């Protein structure tokens, strides 16, 4: 028994990951504005009728009352701020939400304030529920997240020598962290991704704009392919062993939207 009463705190959070713990408890990985990624236990959360259970599902934006712990905090109360329901009922949107949440988790540090990452994830999950352009959102999110956390790819000048880039086709090197000029291209044996002038323009536009400004951007299919490869290679160079949820995203990416299964979600 500890003699002093545990310290209590309240926080907003997004549930990034969970696993079962004991008989009916849940272990949560939470993204919070003030403490970054923290881990907490939710007692009884897997029991039906639990006051916590329904609120703390994956990708829920919640308000929590917590008991401070040394490694694990304890959730004592949970209220939903936004469950992003429209995202949950569409497997394509949902797979992208999980991908964004994993990215946020993998670039975050435990117990370090991350208000910008938190805001970015909450806003992006909100847009994900309604946008017609979910792929652009994921690309914009990845760019913004990497920028906030100090892994901004260089699209302005050559990542190697710093020279200004001619308005022309270039190549991207994940290893060197950006576009490289024709002179630096031949040095080194790193994997280079093609980046056409059109691709570079879109990347620069994505990097400096807010999502609403790019949400209806019409990106050509060749540019889309190049941007996807560039961002994936850059992300994988930042995140050890790759992003686990990308396999699921790729599998369901082109599935047509299917309506909810009859039996509970809809009355009609």
């Amino acid at each position, binding site marked *: 028994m500890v003699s002093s009463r545990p310290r209590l705190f309240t926080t907003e959070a997004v549930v990034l990951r969970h696993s*079962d*713990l004991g008989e009916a408890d849940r272990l949560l990985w939470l993204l919070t504005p003030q403490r970054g990624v923290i881990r907490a236990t939710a007692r009884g959360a897997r029991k*039906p009728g639990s006051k916590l259970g329904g609120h703390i599902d994956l990708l829920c934006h919640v308000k929590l009352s917590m008991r401070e712990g040394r490694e694990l905090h304890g959730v004592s109360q949970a209220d939903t701020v936004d469950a992003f329901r429209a995202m949950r009922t569409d497997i394509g949107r949902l797979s992208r939400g999980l991908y964004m949440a994993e990215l946020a988790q993998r670039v975050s540090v435990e117990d370090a304030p991350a208000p910008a990452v938190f805001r970015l994830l909450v806003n992006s999950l909100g847009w994900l529920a309604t946008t017609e352009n979910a792929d652009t959102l994921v690309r914009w999110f990845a760019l913004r997240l990497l920028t906030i956390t100090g892994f901004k790819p260089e699209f302005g000048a050559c990542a190697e020598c710093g020279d200004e880039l001619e308005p022309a086709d270039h190549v991207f090197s994940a290893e060197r962290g950006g576009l490289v000029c024709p002179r630096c291209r031949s040095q080194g044996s790193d994997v280079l991704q093609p980046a056409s002038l059109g691709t570079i323009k879109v990347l620069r536009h994505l990097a400096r704009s807010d999502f609403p400004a790019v949400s209806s951007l019409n990106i050509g299919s060749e540019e889309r392919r190049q941007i996807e490869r560039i961002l994936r290679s850059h992300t994988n160079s930042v995140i050890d062993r790759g992003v686990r*949820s990308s396999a699921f995203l790729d599998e369901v990416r082109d599935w047509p939207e299917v309506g909810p299964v009859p*039996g*509970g*979600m809809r009355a009609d």
Partner: protein
Amino acid sequence: MNSNSTPSAAPPVARLIEAFNRLPGVGPKSAQRLTYYMIRMPREEAEALAEAVISVKDRIVLCSKCLNITEEPVCPVCTNERRDRTRICVVEEPLDVLAIERTRAYDGLYHVLHGSISPVNGIGAEQLKIRELLDRLRDETVTELILATNPNLEGEATSMYLQRLISPLGIKVTRLARGLSSGADLEYADEMTLANALEGRSEIARNDEPAAG
């Protein structure tokens, strides 16, 4: 979590503590408590326990049809002639079968997926018993598939995934009603549960069909 919590324990003791510690839901403290309890246990009792563990490993197999755990090559539910063979209820875990059987409200067959799609943990559809389910749907005379995955994001993802795979086969796909659990206070219900309960509301004027949940 770590074995250095028992630096002074004799090697066999430390080994048992560590073995317990690897079980789900057993922390270092409980692992120690269980170990010291067993040290004081009569030999016959300890042998019976060890034998029970071994026989579970030796005798329990997965039913070749529904993949529930069983002692026979085909489980008692699948061999029972009185079960309705036109319906399969898909669940995540063997324990879910027990829960549904306890209701005595279902007389169809089951299919156990052994998990749910969990991209963040690297668990995809290919790690679940989905191929086996599709094989059954092709071979058998199933007309209705009831999706009874857990009412959380991963369970929903699994259900949506299955629905997408199965709807081209022309089989009716339904799922358990989502709603308020009995005994729960409305004021504590989360947004999703309440919204689902509202959307899945049923008419109460007719008495023949009691509302679920």
